[in-house]
């Protein structure tokens, strides 16, 4: 018989497992697939030890160590390579998965009032939290087994059973640690959103502390659970110690969460809740201010993300010539071009990737208008003296500004790192010019979203498919030898690929005009149609 505090936990475990069956499964499959496609790809790309040693040489710099942690670079087998390049990043994703799953069922269910009903039943005070954590235990054990055995079954020479199981176990144990972190944050924060925020902040802080520690003072990385992840030295020394540490920490966190939960009132956080502003600032009292305010947090996160993306590409520019010279497949990916340095070629390719990535946040911004409409929040705004054009315009302008900011951040990151590692440096003007050439194409994408919002709001999400199409065609077009007209279909295909090609103003003007026409048509449509009821 369980203590009354945990009455009916068994039944609740069943309910939570049922509720999360699809969500957890999708996370699990996603992470397993992400892990299992890499080793075969690496074996293909870096078939010989010579190639792998080249790769190891490019990895020997502080920027890469900060990003990926230390690796077994002196014996860079396919296994060691996988562990070095993938394990920490995957652990980060697993941590995020744990946080989202746990926050959803702790503060999330509490906030929606579902837990109130559960607690009115003959159920113990700690049963729900206990059940949530037991389910996580099962989910992450499953994750560890699927990835562990999956990796072993790939049959790559340098990936033995022990190493593979260790790889899986590290991921599973990391998941449990952050499930514990999320469970504790759920007790401290005053809303489910804040709980996720605190937990993600802890996750990033762990990553950062480890980065600082790995580059300089080693002691600091021992303070971070994510530091322990790379200390396992999977597929090299196969250290099981850190896994034990992770599991012990997870159990400690679980216990602490229970202790805190027992002393907490429902819907209250243990940290005092900070009162918000009683009045709106002058800035907020306009549609444009509102649009910006609503996505403030997302804007910062994306800007930092784009900068880091730029840095990570920029940091490999230094060893590029030596490295790419030997790799046929990557050479093919870049396409053939005579009389251009391989660095210029690579930068031109990077620009496409950066421009396409930088288009994601502005599209998210513009698409939010439709989201607000579906949530019924536009009625109150339009019932004020705000015209539809002004409202759509606020989203459009924010989107365009957002896109330019993101592109600038990515370019800045690329330049910061590239300039540091390239012997001759990287001229910022040229680089920024190549990036700016993508602005008209980006405006065409934003214009397309405006058009869809105005005329065919139900089809709005199709623009994401178009963006994906652009990526596939432009990034892998040469590899698959796709016909030229497929490239011409996307606005990004018309942008001169500087510094590899000459800058040409005509296509840019054409794209600008197209963007203007799409946007104008969208405004007309939005002024004519009914708004959807919530």
């Amino acid at each position, binding site marked *: 018989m369980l203590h009354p505090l945990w009455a009916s936990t068994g039944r609740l475990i069943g309910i939570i497992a049922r509720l999360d069956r699809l969500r957890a499964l999708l996370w699990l499959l996603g992470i397993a697939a992400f892990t299992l496609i890499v080793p075969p790809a690496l074996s293909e790309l870096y078939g010989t030890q010579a190639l792998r040693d080249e790769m190891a040489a490019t990895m020997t710099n502080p920027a890469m160590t900060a990003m990926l942690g230390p690796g077994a670079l002196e014996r860079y087998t396919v296994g060691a390579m996988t562990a070095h390049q993938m394990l920490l990043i995957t652990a980060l994703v697993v941590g995020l998965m744990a946080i989202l799953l746990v926050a959803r069922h702790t503060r999330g269910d509490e906030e929606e009032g579902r837990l109130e009903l559960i607690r009115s039943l003959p159920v113990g005070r700690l049963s729900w939290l206990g059940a949530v954590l037991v389910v996580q235990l099962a989910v992450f054990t499953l994750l560890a087994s699927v990835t562990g055995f999956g990796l072993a079954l790939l049959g790559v020479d340098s990936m033995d059973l022990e190493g593979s199981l260790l790889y899986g176990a590290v991921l599973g144990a990391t998941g449990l640690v952050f499930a514990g972190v999320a469970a504790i944050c759920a007790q401290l924060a005053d809303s489910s959103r804040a709980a996720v925020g605190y937990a993600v902040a802890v996750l990033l802080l762990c990553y950062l502390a480890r980065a600082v520690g790995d580059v300089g003072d080693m002691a600091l990385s021992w303070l971070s659970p994510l530091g322990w992840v790379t200390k396992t030295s999977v597929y090299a020394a196969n250290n099981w110690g850190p896994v034990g540490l992770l599991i012990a920490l997870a159990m400690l966190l679980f216990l602490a969460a229970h202790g805190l939960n027992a002393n907490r009132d429902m819907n209250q956080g243990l940290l005092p809740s900070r009162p918000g*502003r009683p009045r*709106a600032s002058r800035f907020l009292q306009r*549609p444009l201010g509102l649009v910006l305010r609503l996505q403030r947090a997302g804007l910062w996160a994306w800007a930092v993300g784009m900068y880091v993306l730029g840095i990570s590409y920029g940091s490999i520019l230094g060893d590029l010539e030596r490295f790419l010279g030997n790799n046929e497949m990557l050479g093919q990916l870049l396409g053939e071009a005579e009389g251009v340095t391989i660095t210029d070629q690579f930068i031109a390719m990077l620009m496409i990737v950066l421009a396409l990535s930088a288009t994601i946040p502005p599209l998210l911004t513009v698409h939010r208008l439709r989201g607000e409409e579906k949530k019924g*929040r536009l009625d109150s705004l339009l019932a004020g003296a705000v015209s539809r054009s002004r409202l759509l315009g606020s989203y459009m302008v924010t989107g365009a500004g957002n896109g330019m900011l993101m592109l600038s951040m990515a370019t800045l990151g690329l330049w910061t790192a590239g300039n540091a590692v390239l012997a001759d440096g990287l001229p910022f003007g040229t680089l920024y010019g190549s990036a700016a050439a993508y602005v008209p194409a980006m405006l065409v994408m934003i214009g397309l979203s405006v058009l869809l919002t105005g005329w065919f709001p139900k089809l709005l999400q199709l623009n994401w498919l178009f963006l994906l199409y652009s990526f596939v065609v432009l990034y892998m077009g040469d590899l698959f030898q796709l016909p030229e007209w497929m490239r011409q279909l996307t606005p990004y295909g018309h942008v001169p690929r500087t510094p590899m090609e000459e800058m040409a103003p005509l296509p840019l003007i054409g794209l600008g005009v197209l963007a203007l026409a799409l946007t104008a048509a969208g405004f007309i449509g939005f002024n004519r149609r009914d708004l959807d*009821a919530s």
Partner: protein
Amino acid sequence: MAVLEIRELTKKFGTYQALNGVNLDVNGGEIFGFIGPNGAGKSTTIRVLLGILRATSGQAQIFGKEVWRDAVDIHKRIAYVPGDVHLWPNLTGGEVIDLWVKLKGGGSRQKRDLLVQQYDLDPTKKCRTYSKGNRQKVALIAAFASDSDLFILDEPTSGLDPLMEQVFQDCVMDVKKQGKSVLLSSHILSEVERLCDTIGIIRQGKIIESGAMRQLRHLTRTHVKAELRQPVPGLAQLDGIHALAAEGSILSFEAESEAMDAAIRQLSQCGIVKLECSPPTLEDLFMRHYEGAGGGVR
């Protein structure tokens, strides 16, 4: 003078006829009660008036301007409170109130602070923590703090407690005193009865009854309950007497206005011990229209 004028308004969603020739007038300084069951077309009418939906045919004007074409102009002088208030979860109540008031063109800060106090709202809390009633308060405060000439209120009190309901009614009477108009759509008939000068009943996208409260009462029956010393012989033969029932010495019936005089004459001859007359309620009127037409919900 009519502040709001609707003529033969229709609205189709695909093949579904949501509004089927609505006619309606709200005069200056008048509180108009807009009643009808769920799905009758109240909210659709209001959304057309706000320029959120485009009418299929017919005309709707506020302050003599077209609701669709001149929406922005009109909205400078109207305030709207929806029944289901959707707020941004990460803004505070105070921020949302200021935002809405400002978008309407501004209002008095003193008035806003007074209302926050009267409705007992904590403006420093994030909207995600508010209950339904508190979300409604946010919308009501923003509406009454603005300097509007017409208030369009769509079931604004469904989440309020009786105390706040009273504050709300005071607010409505206050704006009426200032000569402003109110379109109040509501399920709570006692509220409509207490506040409204004129009512319109909508069913299946059509106004089936409208006019001044006082006139409409004439259409309804008064409930009479009397305790008598001896039975009344001729009451059943009178025109306009309905639902006559006797239980021992207690007699009850419903009387149309025209039959009242004759009925009381008869009763007084039979020795009245006790007499109770309850006035016709809006509920009777409402139920009569709906029951008469086979339920009629949707």
